[in-house]
């Protein structure tokens, strides 16, 4: 199926496609009630309660007033429904805000200001700098003469760098006026959610230039929710609108997360239900037999000789209703209540407020606090999560001279400042590489200050440092770079950019000096990717030393190099590069090979050292949590070396003699397979030794391992307590979470950037760090915290307490209902198995709601051990992880307890009080007060503080 979009045609497509009204709402005013009720009743527990409530309307069988079930039921439903309604109302408000935003759109050849929701497919939309794109557009014009514009796609894919978009060739060079009158047709596929693919054609109608088909790709689009940056204006044709945009299609309502505990409670509820059915059947049969043998003789009961057809059912159904309280209706309410309180405790915790920003921790998902106490695997991002993600240029070594060694900050080193002021050629070249060997885009803000938009924080640090050393990267205009050094402006023309790849471990640019026409290759990269390619005869000893020295300080090093190219050498290579870039088979490999041909005989200029400080308390936090039996995996998009370096410095892995790193690598299936086998073998052998064994895998090998050797890799995942995965993509992160989840592990994913969002959503618990990469991760997460070290408190204090408290509360809820229920059952044996309720409706309701549910809420403040003790002995968490406090056997304990207590209460009530003289209401009150006192005693006994 295709869709044909007629550009600038006000009539034709209005009816065909939806308008640009965005709707994230689940309900409308009309369908709210039926839809919400339907959703609520799709849960087994609610169906059960509804059935019971309906049965109670039949007065022949109901033991108590129907209100005693209908009241709580309606209350519960009202509470959940109003919560849903409130959420939906908020979604409606935010939709409304987006829908009513004013946008410039061409109508009848004139630009008009209309609301975003009135955009139709085929309309031409005009955007200014920093505008948010309201729907999916095909770009047809920009302020840039070359037809380029820049967009920030963070909201879409989480990448914060700027991306270039280009207008299709057919629209090239059209002027401002013409863009209002343009007519044509775009043939594009039906809406889908693939944000990397857009296979379409554009054909402009005659007065406009050629009417050939012009192919369109994702490069020609502006997608909804992106921001236009660094471009004065742009305009485009709306092709997908409203909920049919790429973003709209990929927006799914995330599945509500269910905690392990909820699952266990559901299971136990099922068991109780089965027990109840058995009891009902036994008592029902016994009741019918007793009725036929005994009750018919009892003239005072006056049984009719011929009963109605349903007579046999009456007694079993009565018992069903009598036993229905076995599954306490209050459990859902009290659990919801305490869970929201746990969440509030997290919000309130003054020890988890980020002192730098004053941002408190926040629990977005209020329902999963117990899971925090049961975490077995933590998957953490590196940059920004473990580290501060604040790259600072600290030291450098330029042609053998160390700068910044004394003060720890090269920017303040007088020697370097003097060298800069004296325009020492080595230093100038070094700074030039720092400033322009990158993909940074400088943006001039209104105040005249220059902001850099960099793909990587390292480049950002280098460019900023160069600027502070008076080598300011001022402007990038298409291929012309402008730098200003000590007041003079130098222009370079970028000829080629040899992008960074993880194989080459370096990136280069080929630039032409506009002043003297010299062509230069500028490179920067890891030491092992630069130093071996230095020209013969260069003394690299000092550089190697520098690299080692810096690495030991935990600094990230980059070597900068440079080579002058001859005109013909470049021309020759340039042809090869173009050819390689346009090959269809093995393009990446071909390009790498061609790059190798240029990147040799470097004159290595020096080494930079960049610091990415670890956040406070990271090593301690990791150590404590590992003592608590939690396994750590580091998933990072960063290089292997940096990852290992950071891992070492934050106790993630132990250095050589104690720990061992196993590498899984390889480019082909076979290599990966062999390496995986080898690692697995070592792992099996060492699993008994008290040795820290960790495996390291990179994204490429991971891809192959996950695709072809899933079983082996799963085994490895189970065996190893620590893993480092570098160069992984967001989707691979999510896959790893999925893998661990499939082995029945409770996973917690923590991250700070947009690339962690998928993993955070996938994991059982997602924790977002509200850091420098924006709030995206924090918004998608279940919990957001300010610093990594709060994780310790989140898990050990909040998670553990929540688990303990819920374990008690849920089992207690069953216990107290069972006690009452058992007493009812015992009473039925002395009341002719006729289904008489010993307790009246009011007492039952008061018992469930007032006497037992309210006092037990005190247990949300219960602490079995003090916070300090738990922090000092994190091993105690094992009890929660293994679910020792809520499982079938503890539940059986509570079950036995309730049976025993019911017997005690019943026997004492009957015998100690009045005995033969006892009367129904007296007995019921005595039994009830007995139960209430016993409950209070149990709560007091089980409460630890």
């Amino acid at each position, binding site marked *: 199926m295709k869709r044909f979009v007629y550009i600038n045609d006000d009539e034709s497509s209005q009816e065909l496609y939806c308008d640009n009204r965005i709707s994230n709402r689940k309900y409308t005013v009309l369908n709210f009630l039926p839809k919400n009720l339907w959703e609520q009743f799709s849960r087994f527990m609610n169906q059960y309660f509804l059935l019971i409530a309906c049965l109670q309307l039949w007065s022949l069988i109901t033991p108590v007033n129907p209100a005693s079930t209908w009241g709580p039921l309606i209350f519960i439903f009202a509470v959940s429904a109003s919560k849903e309604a409130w959420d939906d109302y908020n979604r409606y408000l935010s939709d409304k805000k987006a829908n009513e935003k004013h946008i410039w759109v061409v109508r009848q050849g004139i630009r008009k200001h209309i609301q975003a929701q009135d955009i139709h497919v085929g309309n031409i939309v005009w955007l200014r700098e920093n505008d948010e794109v309201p729907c999916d557009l095909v770009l047809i014009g920009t302020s840039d003469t070359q037809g380029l514009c820049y967009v920030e796609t963070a909201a879409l894919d989480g990448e914060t760098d700027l991306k270039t978009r280009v207008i299709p060739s057919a629209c090239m060079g059209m002027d401002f006026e013409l863009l209002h009158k343009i007519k044509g047709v775009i043939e594009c596929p039906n809406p889908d959610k693939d944000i990397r693919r857009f296979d379409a054609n554009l054909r402009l109608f005659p007065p406009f230039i050629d009417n050939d088909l012009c192919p369109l790709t994702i490069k020609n689009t502006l997608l909804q929710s992106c921001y236009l940056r660094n471009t004065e204006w742009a305009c485009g044709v709306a092709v997908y609108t409203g909920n049919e945009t790429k973003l709209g299609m990929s927006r799914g309502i995330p599945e509500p997360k269910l905690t392990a505990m909820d699952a266990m409670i559901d299971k136990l509820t099922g068991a109780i239900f089965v027990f109840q059915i058995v009891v009902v059947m036994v008592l029902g049969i016994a009741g019918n037999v007793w009725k036929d043998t005994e009750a018919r003789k*009892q*003239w*005072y009961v006056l*049984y009719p000789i011929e009963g109605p057809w349903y007579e046999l059912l009456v007694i079993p159904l009565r018992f069903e209703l009598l036993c229905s309280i076995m599954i306490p209706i209050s459990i859902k309410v009290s659990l919801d209540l305490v869970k929201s309180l746990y969440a509030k405790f997290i919000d309130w915790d003054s020890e988890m407020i980020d002192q730098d920003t004053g941002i408190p921790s926040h629990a977005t998902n209020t329902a999963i606090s117990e899971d925090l106490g049961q975490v077995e695997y933590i998957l953490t991002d590196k940059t920004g999560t473990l580290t501060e993600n604040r790259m600072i240029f600290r030291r450098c070594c330029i042609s053998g001279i160390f700068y910044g060694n004394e003060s720890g900050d090269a920017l303040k080193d007088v020697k370097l400042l003097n060298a800069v002021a004296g325009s020492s050629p080595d230093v100038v070249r070094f700074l030039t590489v720092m400033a322009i060997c990158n993909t940074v885009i400088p943006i001039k803000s209104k105040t005249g200050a220059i902001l850099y938009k960099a793909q990587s924080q390292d480049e950002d640090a280098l460019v900023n440092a160069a600027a502070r050393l008076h080598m300011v990267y001022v402007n990038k205009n298409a291929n012309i770079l402008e730098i200003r050094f000590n007041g003079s402006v130098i222009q370079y023309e970028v000829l080629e950019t040899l992008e960074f790849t993880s194989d080459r471990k370096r990136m280069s640019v080929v630039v032409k000096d506009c002043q003297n026409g010299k062509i230069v290759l500028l490179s920067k990269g890891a030491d092992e990717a630069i130093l071996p390619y230095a020209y013969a005869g260069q003394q690299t000893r000092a550089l190697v030393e520098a690299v080692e020295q810096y690495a030991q300080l935990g600094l990230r090093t980059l070597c900068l190099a440079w080579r002058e190219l001859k005109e013909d050498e470049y021309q020759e290579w340039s042809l090869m590069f173009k050819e390689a870039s346009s090959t269809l088979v093995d393009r990446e490999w071909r390009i790498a090979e061609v790059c190798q041909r240029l990147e040799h005989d470097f004159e290595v200029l020096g080494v930079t050292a960049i610091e990415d400080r670890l956040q406070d308390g990271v090593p301690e936090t990791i150590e404590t949590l590992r003592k608590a039996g939690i396994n750590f995996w580091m998933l990072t998009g960063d290089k292997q070396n940096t990852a290992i370096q950071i891992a070492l410095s934050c106790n993630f892995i132990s250095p050589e003699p104690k720990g061992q790193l196993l590498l899984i690598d390889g480019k082909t299936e076979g290599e990966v397979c062999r390496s995986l086998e080898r690692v697995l073998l070592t792992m099996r052998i060492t699993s008994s030794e008290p040795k820290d064994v960790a495996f390291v895998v990179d994204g490429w090998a991971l891809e192959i391992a996950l695709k072809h050797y899933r079983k082996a890799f799963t085994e490895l995942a189970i065996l190893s307590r620590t893993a480092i995965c570098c160069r992984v993509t967001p989707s691979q992160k999510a896959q790893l979470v999925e893998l661990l989840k499939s082995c029945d592990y409770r996973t917690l994913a923590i991250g700070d950037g947009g690339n962690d969002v998928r993993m955070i959503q996938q994991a059982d618990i997602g924790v977002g760090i509200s850091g420098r990469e924006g709030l995206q991760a924090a918004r998608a997460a279940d919990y957001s915290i300010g610093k990594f070290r709060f994780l310790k408190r989140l898990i050990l204090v909040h998670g553990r307490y929540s688990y303990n408290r819920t374990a008690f509360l849920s089992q207690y809820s069953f216990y107290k209902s069972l006690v009452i229920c058992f007493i009812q059952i015992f009473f039925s044996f002395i009341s002719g198995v006729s289904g008489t309720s010993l307790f009246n409706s009011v007492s039952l309701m008061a018992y469930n709601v007032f006497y037992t549910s309210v006092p037990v809420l005190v247990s949300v403040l219960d602490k079995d051990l003090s916070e300090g003790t738990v922090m000092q002995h994190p091993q105690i968490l094992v009890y929660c992880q293994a679910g020792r406090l809520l499982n079938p056997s503890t539940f059986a304990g509570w079950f036995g307890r309730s049976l025993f207590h019911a017997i005690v209460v019943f026997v004492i009530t009957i*015998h*100690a009080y009045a*005995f033969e*003289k006892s009367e*129904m*209401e007296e007995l019921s009150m005595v039994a009830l007060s007995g139960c209430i006192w016993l409950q209070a005693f149990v709560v007091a006994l089980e409460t630890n503080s």
Partner: protein
Amino acid sequence: MTDTDRVRHRDTKTAFYLFTQQKLPACKPVLTPAWVITIFLFTGFIFIPLGLVTLRASRSVIEIVERYDTECVPEPFRIDKVSYIQDDSIPKNCSLFLKVHKYMKAPIYIYYQLDNYYQNHRRYVKSRSDQQLLNGQKYQATSSCQPVEFNNARPIVPCGLIAWSLFNDTFTFIRERAELKVNRKNIAWKSDRDHKFGKNVYPSNFQNGTLIGGGKLNPRIPLSDQEDLIVWMRTSALPSFRKLYGRIEEDLDADDVVLVQLMNNYNTYSFGGKKKLVLSTSSWLGGKNDFFGLACVFVGSSSLILAIVFMLLHLKFQR
């Protein structure tokens, strides 16, 4: 100290702040062996005397229980007791001799006891209308009274199975040819008489139908004064139960013989129930019931034993 510091300092003191930080003061008992032993000893020392006192009170109560349901059926009718009891033409008079073993101090309570009688059966318990008992015929919604709701299309007051099956044996007590004074007033709860049974509600259309259940009521006496009915309408919880009939307000000496003349009207023969007559004195604790005392003694002595065992264990394996 700056202002904000001061504010923060004050904040940390409020109960709400402590609550939000989960730091409300709490006490946490540590169960050391000494504490455990003390607690058990304490329980033992409380419960054993308590049990002994209550046991003594219960033992001081004197009770005479006499079953009369079989003996009160004349010899020839014993084969078919049901037809005997249902035949109105046969007089139901019967005499019993009760021997007093010990001195019984007034007031002596007279109970009738029924065994194997399920007043707690669901059909039975529900079959009454409290509103009608209080308001009489003004109250129409008596569907709960089924199957004894209407007779000849007129409402029955009091309706329902419970009232319909009213116990109707009567007793008179004679000692040495003089009739003992039996007080039949104030045998029902005062609250029932005052608030549950109407002062202006008179029985009507009661026991008029084809099916006659138990006793009849004097239609000229309001329900609030029909104390036998009120007592009967307090349904019993157990299938064998005693209900108060009256009080003898004279002391009975040891070896006195009391002649009981009774009307054996009530049918318990069809379902094999027993009827008993009970005379009982009372103590400060009520009637005769050893269970509570025994239970207390049991709990007390077991905690004492536990305390001793723990003490020995503690001394032996001292840390």
